[in-house]
């Protein structure tokens, strides 16, 4: 559990968290990027870019 940097609500995290992963805040819907796992550090995820995809 950590705090959403957008709304301050608790964000539930799963066990296999990876740096670079995106987690959603269930309260405000913000997409948060995992910058660190020990300790957990979150930041606002980058906005969708036009050339993203597969």
């Amino acid at each position, binding site marked *: 559990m950590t705090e959403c940097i957008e709304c301050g609500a608790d964000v539930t995290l799963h066990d*296999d968290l*990876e*740096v*670079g*992963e*995106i987690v959603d805040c269930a309260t405000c819907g913000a997409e948060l*990027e*995992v910058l660190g796992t020990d300790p957990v550090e979150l930041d606002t*995820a*980058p906005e969708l*870019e*036009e*050339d*993203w*995809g*597969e």
Partner: protein
Amino acid sequence: MRIGMLYSRIRRDEKLLLSELRERGHDVVKIDVRKQRFGLTEPPADIEGCDLVIDRCLATSRSRYVTRFVEQYDVPVVNDPETAAVCADKAHNSLVLADAGIPTPNTEVAFTKEAAMEIIESFGYPCVIKPVVGSWGRLMAKIDTRSAAEAILEHKETLGHYEHKVFYIQEFVEKPGRDIRVLATDGEPVAAMARSSDHWLTNAAKGAETEHTEVDDEMRDLVARASESVGGGLLGVDLMETGDAYTVHEVNHTVEFKALNEVAETDVPATVVDWLEARAEAGMEATV
């Protein structure tokens, strides 16, 4: 083995690969391309010593450049930059498919809205206009009328990035409410799924329903040829059914497979990692 993974966002697909690689005891190096500097001759420390680097960049532009740099450092990279360059651009992709004699939707390109309108009128309605770079079904338009065509072309010409002035226009294929994605390694199918939707776009990213589908002989042949046409590698080949045949509309080079893994009868990440290991071993033997 030391396996590098180029990324800027870890999706479910990358987590599946990371998990499989780590379970097998590989030394996995996650390489966030946003933090790297790529010189002309010397590799960044994270890439140096890798037996293989996997390109899982979310951004096509980064994928195209970074694979070129990794190849420059003589480190094997999946997929290679030639494949990335072809698959990253729909026009390029269509050209190589047609050149290989693979059935692909009729497509024309123009650089002005007047010439684009001529194409649209000759194709008739509906037809489809797509950005040459893009994914997940974004910014694609099914054009049903001339007035819609005029509006779309004007918007693209006025508001768009210069790539949106490369008007890529395609016939509309009457598919049976679904298309087929085949994940393949050097042309050998790993698994396939049908993606169904009431919407004309059937991308999994658009919420299409997915289900396992068998790869028949014709599909297998087309996948092998489509893979070869773009230079091989770990690819997602997209096909549409046209009556009793298929047409290949594109090949994807940083293919997502999480949706496929949920419906496939095979263990997709395990099969992909089998292939990656073989590629790395081949590269190691070549340098001995």
